[in-house]
């Protein structure tokens, strides 16, 4: 009999049993018809049960048959104890759902290989230097710098792209829902090195470079545009470009979280010729067998020489140049899953999320193991009986594993539903903080595999300790020794220790993250972001200061607008310009932040004027030599000297000295980074020599009656009715500031979620174990109470070891906390893992949750009527 037939019969066991019964009765009937005595025939057959069992064994896969029977039994047992089962499934579902959501996000952002040829061969080039107040790692290079690397004879194919950037459609294609489209400028080797083939038309060829007006678009955009013909003109970017081809279906660029839609030749990128504009990320594909280390050294050598030339200008202090070149380094990083700013920004946060989710999963598993162990101890009689009837140790272990497999299956299914909601909700939370991540969260084979792996791990973790009890029950079949109870409750104490340990660790880490977020949001920025709108304006062509000034005046006439100022970019938007400045007596030098602002800028943002009255006459008549400085600048350069009228010199990259006179001092503000102290800053007027014609600016608008979204549309109309300016985006200054805390906000939210979940799970687990302990010793306690024993002493006896386990767990958790906190330091702001408050809060919360969970059980134990209890026994 083939195994397939046996498998079919195993899966259709009822039908098999019916057939066996029918064969038996058919035989009996025929024998009786032929005159045989029914009883004699029955005797000849033997036991009907044995007949059925033997027949079954001959027709089925016995191991699978018993497995299915045990699985059915396990399911029945779980359904019989519906309350406990629900608690176990909900605990596990919360944790597995969080793990799945974390994995889905990590998969989409960090793990999923790019849909290109042999993605494992791709590397991204990262740069770094160790200078104070300088990024330790960056990934972009100017196009001239890239070309220098590309021209090297290396065992690799280099390619470069800009970061995808949202550009408005100059002429929006009919039916397109969005006003903007993501454009990415790519080098000539981009598509070739990735090994991509077009789905329609062609990809770029050599003659498209450096700057032919041609475009390749993604298939998703091509479909959205209604599948336009090759040769169609697309009005995106500065000039119309001709569509030459469409990429394959899955390709969305090489920056996960920041997908592209239109690819243009690198030569069309704004400022592509500038050696100082680091806007291209360099990638490479290693030739087979090439050494990554040798290539890295080769690239570093060339890049360092390029940087040495670029920094060899009078505008950069020689000391700074030397320090920069001495500490500069270049590294090749694996780019199997692409490389993007989103990965850099959120990789660590995702690691924290995954870590927290994993610990909460451990807590949930310990919780379930706890409940299952309690159940196993109350099932001693049943398990011993099974062992006595010949069920082997392995069979009993398997039964326990199957029960936990049912639980984990249910939990993973419920968890998947939770993850389907949770992962997009986390992205939504990020989007509401102003950082939109476009991730494809579709379930794929890797996610399914992870879910399956998770189910197996959960099954084993949950069954580990209870299975130990079963094994030992089997060995001690039939015995009633006291040591059995002792060993069983020891396992429970061990589990309680684990639960408190994990819970305290999660609470410690959560406390650090929440405090960090709280301190960051409470940071004094030095300006009032409330009620200010930031309107990003773009002119069709570069416009002179007078026209921009007229635009400011025009927007001031919009009803509801109180004040309007113009600036390069809003404070804390992350943008900044640093220049070398000389000032003071004796003459000193420093790198100083420069920002172009109009005269009303301090008033719009509520920045106090400490001295002088600013540019005095507004931006149209403003003097190029009059600047505002901030308090830090004044203190740094002029100390106790009078400030107004003092001279300062901006030394540009060519070594020219541009003189300014201080006409006012304003308060310090956090300028580029909320975490960094206010820099030394100079505010130059948006007019005169310092700022001639410009194409982009931000209008900062303060409304007279509390600016709200309602003001956005009138402002947009007012700007666009001029016919020369377009609004690219409007957001509140508060949103701009909030974007600075997007990661911290997300982490604080996750910390709150996981902290609450772990406390809840701990409380449930403790309640379960105490309930079990008192239920087991009910008779003994009743007797002792009846004999005059004092309640408090009895409680002490019962709880001594449990309390010790919990205390040790709490201590171990607080000991591990600082170690975990050390790994998080890069994500923390103004919080130390050695701060006493960081220790006190988790201990207090665990104690509180413990008291809440233990209270009802202890109250019930103390109020037990001994007579009633003994009668029930």
């Amino acid at each position, binding site marked *: 009999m083939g195994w397939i037939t046996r498998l079919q019969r195993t899966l259709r066991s009822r039908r098999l049993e019916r057939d066996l019964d029918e064969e038996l009765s058919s035989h009996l009937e025929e024998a009786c018809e032929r005159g045989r005595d029914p009883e004699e025939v029955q005797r000849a*057959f033997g036991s009907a049960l044995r007949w059925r069992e033997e027949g079954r064994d001959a027709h089925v896969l016995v191991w699978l048959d018993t497995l299915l029977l045990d699985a059915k039994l396990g399911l029945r047992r779980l359904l019989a104890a519906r309350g406990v089962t629900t608690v176990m499934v909900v605990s596990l579902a919360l944790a597995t759902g969080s793990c799945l959501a974390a994995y889905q996000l990590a998969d989409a952002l960090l793990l999923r290989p790019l849909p290109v040829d042999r993605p494992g061969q791709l590397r991204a080039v990262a740069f770094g230097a160790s200078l104070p107040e300088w990024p330790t790692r960056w990934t972009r290079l100017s196009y001239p710098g890239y070309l220098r690397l590309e021209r090297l004879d290396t065992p690799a194919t280099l390619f470069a792209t800009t970061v995808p950037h949202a550009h408005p459609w100059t002429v929006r294609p009919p039916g397109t829902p969005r006003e903007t489209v993501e454009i990415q400028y790519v080098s000539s080797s981009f598509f070739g090195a990735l090994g991509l083939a077009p789905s329609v038309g062609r990809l770029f060829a050599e003659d498209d470079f450096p700057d032919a007006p041609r475009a390749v678009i993604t298939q998703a955009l091509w479909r959205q545009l209604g599948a336009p013909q090759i040769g169609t003109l697309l009005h995106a970017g500065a000039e119309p470009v001709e569509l030459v081809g469409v990429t394959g279906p899955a390709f969305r660029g090489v920056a996960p979280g920041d997908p592209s839609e239109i690819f243009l030749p690198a030569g069309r990128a704004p400022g592509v010729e500038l050696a100082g504009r680091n806007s291209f990320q360099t990638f490479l594909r290693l030739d087979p067998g090439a050494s990554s280390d040798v290539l890295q050294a080769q690239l570093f050598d060339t890049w360092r020489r390029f940087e040495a030339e670029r920094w060899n200008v009078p505008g950069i202090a020689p000391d700074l140049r030397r320090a920069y070149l001495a500490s500069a380094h270049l590294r090749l990083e694996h780019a199997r899953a692409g490389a993007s700013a989103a990965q850099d920004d959120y990789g660590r946060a995702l690691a924290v999320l995954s870590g927290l989710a994993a610990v909460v999963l451990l807590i949930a598993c310990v919780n379930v193991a706890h409940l299952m162990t309690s159940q196993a101890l109350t099932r001693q009689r049943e398990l011993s009986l099974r062992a006595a009837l010949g069920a082997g140790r392995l069979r009993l272990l398997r039964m326990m594993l199957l029960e936990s497999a049912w639980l984990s299956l249910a939990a993973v299914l419920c968890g998947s539903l939770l993850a389907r909601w949770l992962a997009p909700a986390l992205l939504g939370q990020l989007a509401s903080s102003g950082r939109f991540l476009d991730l494809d969260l579709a379930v794929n084979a890797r996610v399914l595999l992870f879910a399956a792996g998770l189910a197996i791990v959960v099954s084993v973790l949950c069954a580990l300790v209870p299975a130990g009890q079963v094994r030992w029950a089997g060995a001690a079949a039939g015995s009633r020794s006291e040591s059995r109870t002792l060993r069983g409750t020891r396992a429970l104490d061990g589990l309680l220790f684990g639960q408190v340990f994990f819970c305290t660790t999660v609470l410690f880490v959560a406390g650090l993250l929440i405090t960090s977020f709280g301190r960051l949001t409470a940071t004094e920025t030095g300006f009032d972001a409330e009620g200010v709108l930031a309107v990003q304006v773009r002119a069709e062509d570069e416009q002179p200061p007078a026209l921009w000034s007229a635009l400011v005046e025009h927007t001031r006439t919009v009803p509801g607008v109180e004040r309007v100022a113009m600036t390069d970019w809003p404070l804390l938007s992350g943008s900044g310009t640093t220049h070398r400045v000389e000032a003071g007596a004796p003459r000193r030098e420093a790198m100083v932040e420069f920002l172009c602002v109009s005269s009303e800028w301090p008033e719009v943002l509520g920045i106090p004027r400490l001295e002088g009255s600013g540019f005095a006459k507004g931006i149209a008549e403003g003097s190029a030599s009059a600047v505002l400085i901030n308090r830090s600048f004044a203190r740094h350069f002029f100390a106790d000297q009078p400030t107004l009228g003092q001279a300062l010199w901006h030394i540009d990259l060519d070594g020219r000295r541009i003189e300014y006179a201080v006409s006012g001092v304003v308060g310090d503000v956090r300028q580029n980074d909320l975490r960094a102290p206010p820099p030394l800053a100079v505010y130059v007027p948006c007019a005169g020599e310092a700022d001639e014609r410009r194409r982009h600016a931000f209008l900062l608008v303060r409304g007279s009656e509390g600016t709200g979204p309602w003001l956005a549309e009138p402002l947009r109309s007012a700007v666009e009715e001029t016919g020369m300016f377009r609004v690219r985006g409007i957001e509140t200054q508060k949103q701009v500031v909030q974007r600075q805390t997007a990661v911290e906000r997300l982490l604080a939210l996750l910390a709150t979620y996981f902290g609450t979940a772990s406390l809840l799970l701990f409380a449930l687990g403790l309640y379960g174990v105490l309930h079990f302990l008192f239920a087991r010793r009910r008779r003994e306690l009743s007797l002792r109470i009846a004999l005059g024993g004092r309640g408090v002493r009895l409680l002490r006896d019962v709880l001594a070891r449990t309390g010790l386990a919990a205390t040790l767990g709490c201590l171990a958790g607080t000991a591990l906390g600082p170690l975990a906190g050390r790994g998080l330091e890069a994500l923390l702001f103004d919080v130390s893992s050695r701060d006493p408050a960081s220790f006190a809060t988790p201990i207090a919360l665990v104690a509180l949750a413990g008291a809440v969970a233990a209270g009802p059980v202890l109250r019930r134990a103390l109020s037990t009527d001994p007579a009633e209890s003994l009668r029930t026994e």
Partner: protein
Amino acid sequence: MPRTDALIGSLDLLVLKTLASRPGLHGYALMTAIQVASEDALRVEEGSLYPALRRMEEAGWLSAKWVQKDNGRRARAYRLTRAGKKQLAAEEERWLSLAEAVRQVLRSV
């Protein structure tokens, strides 16, 4: 009086041989066929026949399928598989050589 203990070691052979000449017999008919062919000398008990049938089906010597009997009831009809035919040949050879050996012992003693 038919003897049931005479079947020790030869039940498989008897079942295989009977099914080789009369394929498609069900359990009761098979039992009767052996009894008739042996002129009532051998009788197979139900308690031995069905375990043997199952064992041989498990070994792949027999195949079985449900058939409708004259009285309308269903019964499992057995027939030899290719492996069963080979097994029958082997069993026959084994039995004949055993019988020959026994006969020689009887003659010489």
